[in-house]
Each structure stands twice: as structure tokens, then as C-alpha cells.
């Protein structure tokens, strides 16, 4: 793969030496190809785990000695995207405090490749991500939490003894405060 990219770079370089119009056109095409190739590498690395609710449910009910933070989001949900960095920060900063973040995407299947994967690549998301694809929301929403009306963002914080649910947006401070309640 590396060799292929190198070859393309050589080609671009070769094109740059030339000033005729046709070659200029070729150059832009080649550059575009390189960009595509680069993006392909990133996106192909992203192996989306797509679950129905039955498959997701065990991840909402883990029994290990940890604190789990589960956030329901989607790339099309502006308040979700806004708070996503806070969950990422939590995942990073609270690692040694036994906290695990799980991001459950509710993106539409037709946008997995066009929106979700590029979003994950662009923002270099580090938290674990799964995708929930289950159209019968009326059945599974109450199983996540009885109080959930279905609006996102929504977040569960739980350990094996306790569970809290939020249908709201978080600031980093609020999020840390809620998680700290589980730690202290």
C-alpha cells in the first residue's frame, strides 16, 4: 500500500514539472486520487459494530466492577456532536478511575459510510463505538429507560449496583460531577 501511495506522489511530482493544460488536469485528478486513497485507508480501518437491541442490551447491563457511561448520539444531532468531546475527555481522563465510555450511534444505515465513518475518522474518536440499528424503537426505548421519551442526546451512567438516566445535554463539568458521584 505504502508503495502505491509513493508511486502516486512520484506521479504528482512528475505532473508538476509539466505545464501543459492537459497535464494540469491530470494533476488535480491524481491529487484527488491520493486523497481518496488516504481516506480509504482510514475508513477501512473503522470496523463498525452494528447491533440490534437484543445484541446491544448486554452492553447496558455489564456486571464487572466498573462504571459505565453510555451515550446515545448521532452525527445529525447537533447537541450530541457538541457534547461528544466531553465524553471523549471523560474516557481519556477517567480511564484510571475504572470508567468506560460507550458511544451508541443512532445514525441511519445509509449514512454509515458517507457520514458516520468519516465523522469517526475526522474526530479520531477513541471511545468504544457501536451502532444501534433497530427500527422498532417503541419496543426498545422503554428497555433503555422507562422515562426516556426518545429524544437524543441521552445518557446512562451505571455500575453493578446503581443506574441513572439523563435525557439532556451535558457540559464536561456536569458529566464529571455525575460520574464522581459513582466514584466517591
Amino acid at each position, binding site marked *: 500500500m505504502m508503495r502505491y501511495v509513493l508511486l502516486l506522489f512520484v506521479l504528482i511530482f512528475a505532473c508538476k514539472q509539466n505545464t501543459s493544460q492537459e497535464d494540469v488536469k491530470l494533476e488535480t485528478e491524481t491529487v484527488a486520487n491520493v486523497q481518496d486513497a488516504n481516506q480509504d485507508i482510514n475508513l477501512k480501518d473503522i470496523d463498525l459494530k452494528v447491533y440490534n437491541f437484543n445484541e446491544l442490551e448486554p452492553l447496558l447491563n455489564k456486571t464487572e466492577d466498573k462504571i459505565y457511561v453510555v451515550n446515545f448520539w*448521532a452525527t*445529525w*444531532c*447537533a*447537541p450530541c456532536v457538541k457534547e461528544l468531546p466531553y465524553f471523549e475527555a471523560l474516557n481519556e481522563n477517567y480511564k484510571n478511575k475504572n470508567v468506560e465510555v460507550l458511544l451508541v450511534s*443512532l445514525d*441511519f*444505515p445509509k449514512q454509515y459510510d458517507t457520514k458516520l465513518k468519516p465523522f469517526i475518522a475526522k474526530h479520531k474518536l477513541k471511545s468504544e463505538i457501536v451502532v444501534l440499528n433497530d*427500527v*422498532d*424503537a*417503541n419496543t426498545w*426505548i*422503554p428497555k433503555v429507560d*422507562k*422515562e*426516556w*421519551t*426518545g*429524544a*437524543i*442526546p441521552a445518557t446512562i451512567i451505571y455500575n453493578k449496583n446503581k443506574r*441513572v438516566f*439523563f*435525557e*439532556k*445535554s451535558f457540559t464536561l463539568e456536569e458529566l464529571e460531577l455525575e460520574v464522581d458521584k459513582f466514584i466517591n
Partner: protein
Amino acid sequence: MKKVLKLMLLTTVVFGIWSFTNVENDKGYKVGDVVADFKLQNIDGRTVSMSDFDDAKGFIITFTCNTCPYAVAYEDRIEALNKMYAEKGYPVIAIMPNNVKVKPGDSMEAMKERAMEKGFTFPYLMDEGQRVYPQFGATKTPHIYVVQKTKKGNVVKYIGAIDDNYQNAEEVKKKYVEDAVNALLNGKEVEVTETKAIGCTIKV
């Protein structure tokens, strides 16, 4: 004695959950409540109230917007509901609840454009000042309330989703709103009175 203890424990748990409940969720109409009328501006510049519809037997009140993918996925189905039920006495009234400063794509101008593009035949109202959606207790778009006109007022008969498949109208198995309106038209009780669906938070 054990029974009493169990009951006490249950009461505590229920009460605990209840008191923990988001305050927002406790507000708003429940099935059986009488809905207060509203007076909101339509995309044609006029104001619309439920009392304007002399011949209506009820309404399919739909909180929706231009910018939420779930709402967009249901646009054609909302239009189809109006086509199917307006003349039978259950017209659709759509209300856009978002703060347009947060979502400029939901401005009155944008609402007009979208309605033109899609050929909406129902009123598409702006919840100016965002006062109506909290009365209903709507939390997201789309969020539907089927109300029936009675002597004591417009009574909520159904709250929730249009159907059970936002992704594909062809694969819908349960048409919640249609079932509710059909039941009311036939003088029957609505069987499924509340459903849950994913949607976009109303932007404040």
C-alpha cells in the same frame, strides 16, 4: 408481614423512580387531558387555532421541523395522513417548536420553502416564543398528539410516533396514528395510546 415489607419496598422504589424523574417529563398533557387551544402563525401569514376548524372531529397535532432527519423521514407520511384524514374530520396541524436562533434552518422563511417544495396541504405553524410545545410536553420532533373534539374540549387520545419504522415506510408493521384515528372515527377506544420513538431534541 413479608407481604407488607415487599409492598413497602415496592412503594419506596416506585416513589424513588418517580421523584427522580426529569421534571420536564412530568409536565405536559397525558392521554385523557383536555388540550388548551393555541393561536399560532401559519406559513401563509394567517394565524391558526383549533377553534377555526368548525367541521373537525379532532386533530393530528404534529410537532415537526425542517432540520431533524427523523422529522424529514416522516414528511411524506405526515402529508399522507392529512390527505387521508382531513376530509374525514381529522386534519393535521403541524407545529415547528425549535428556537430558530439555534436552528436557522427552521425559520419561517425556511418553513415556507420546505412546505412549497413538499407541497404540504396542512398548516405549518411557528411556535413563536416556544410556549405551546411545553404545554403539550413535546420533547422531540416528530412528536404526535391525536386529539378528539368532545363537549369538554379537545381530549388527548394518543401520544407518540406515527408508525414503527422511521427508516422505511414500506416496511411499517404498525401504523399507530392511523389505528388511533380509525378507532376514533369508528367510535371505538384507541388501543395503543402511547408509543416511544427516537427524535431530535426540541432546540431551546
